[in-house]
């Protein structure tokens, strides 16, 4: 667990062929989709009663 935490906190690069890179790649993808779907949903919600 400590090793994992250290791994996650270390500085590194995205998409690098190491566990941290793979984690960051999917973290970025998850965040992009969250922002994207969130903003669409919000816009739909504020406009649907018109």
């Amino acid at each position, binding site marked *: 667990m400590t090793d994992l935490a250290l791994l*996650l*906190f270390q*500085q*590194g*690069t*995205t*998409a*690098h*062929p190491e566990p*941290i*890179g*793979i984690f*960051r*790649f999917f*973290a*970025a*993808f998850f*965040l*992009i989709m969250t*922002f*994207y779907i969130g*903003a*669409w949903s*919000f*816009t739909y919600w*504020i*406009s649907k009663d*018109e």
Partner: protein
Amino acid sequence: MPIGDLSVPIIGKNVVIATLVQSHILFAAFIIGAVLIAATSEYMGMITKQPRYERFARNLARFVVLLFASGAALAITFVLALVTLFPLFFSYLQNIFFWVFLVEAFMFLGQIIIVYAWYNVWDKLAYRKSLHVVFGFIAGFFGLMAMTMIDAVASYMLTPADAPVTEVARTFLNQTMVPLNMHRFVGNFSYVGFLIAGWGAFRYLRATREDDREYYDWMGHWGIIWGFGFLIIQPIIGYGYLKGIRESAPDAFSTIMLGEKSWVFNLLAIYLAIMSIAATAYFVHKLRFAVVPMETLRKLSVGAIGFTGLFTVLNIIPNDASLVPQIGLVFLGGEDTQIPLGSMYPYKYIGLIGLMLVGFFVIALYLRATASGFRWGQASRWSQYALMVCTVTVVFTMVTMGYTRETSRRVDNDPGYLIYQCVTLDQQLVTKNCPAGDSLKGGSE
């Protein structure tokens, strides 16, 4: 005083930038494409007198106005994050592209003003429709100009011009600026078209009134014409773009086409396959509802599905057995094992050219049927699912292609670059192989 090197725990600062920029681009591309499609639709409504174009254009314009805030908020947050996390790099960019950023800011301002004015005077200019349509196109023009400015920056980061940065024209019109801009211009229409098609499909499946079913059925058709029509142009423009990258940044080209990141293009080929087959299947289905029966066209389209499948398979076959080395997807000796029919030349070229030709053929048949009209509101559920599949796939395509361009500068990460061969990922200026020489330093030592 040295500038602080801030870091972001867990996800790292690169992910922060990637997340904000990718999200922003998904909205910015939508807004640019949607404004132009809405203005074109309004114009179509004006000349054909069909009220569905007007209803569509107005609703799309309203959605753009509402969505603008999300796109703009992400842009501002991104610039703030860039200044905070990459201050040296941002300084270099400002030195090189101050005037470009300035123009971009004013184009953005112009876009905001005209988009809001365009939507707000819809009723006021109801009897001066031509003028109102012009408003929409001007808003689209401002958006395109803003995109052009940022494309100069983005393309320069990958292919810096072989000239001092003081040579404004060569810096702005660097080797991949025009192909990137064309690629994004066409991509905006395709992306928005598929989103419209998916939205129309979603609403069609939920519609209970007959007039709504007819309208949303038509909306799915209108969206897929834009989406697929522009999609089939993309391979040739993308080829031109890649050719520019190969000539100016060969290591970056090798990384994304032949090296460790070539799986991104295998993913792209899969996305292309899904969108092409789903769109063609939709066309075949739709031809059953042509007002004038077109059985021959329909049979030809069925044949086109077969060819689409054949060509997409050629595109999907990987070059070697090292599929995604980053997650251990390596089989049978990896790069040493060449897969039959997987090489770029001639098979991928055959696949891409074939896909385009079949695409043109299919859409020509479909437009021929469109000219005589369809019976709306009778489409099956699965045809609407095909549209929705295209929508999800096009979003993944956008994200994958954005990642591809940005990750290509990393090459082997020894070092990766923010400006290819000029500024490293840790914001150090290197002048040895930098095409712009030491001009990035400006007047400082």
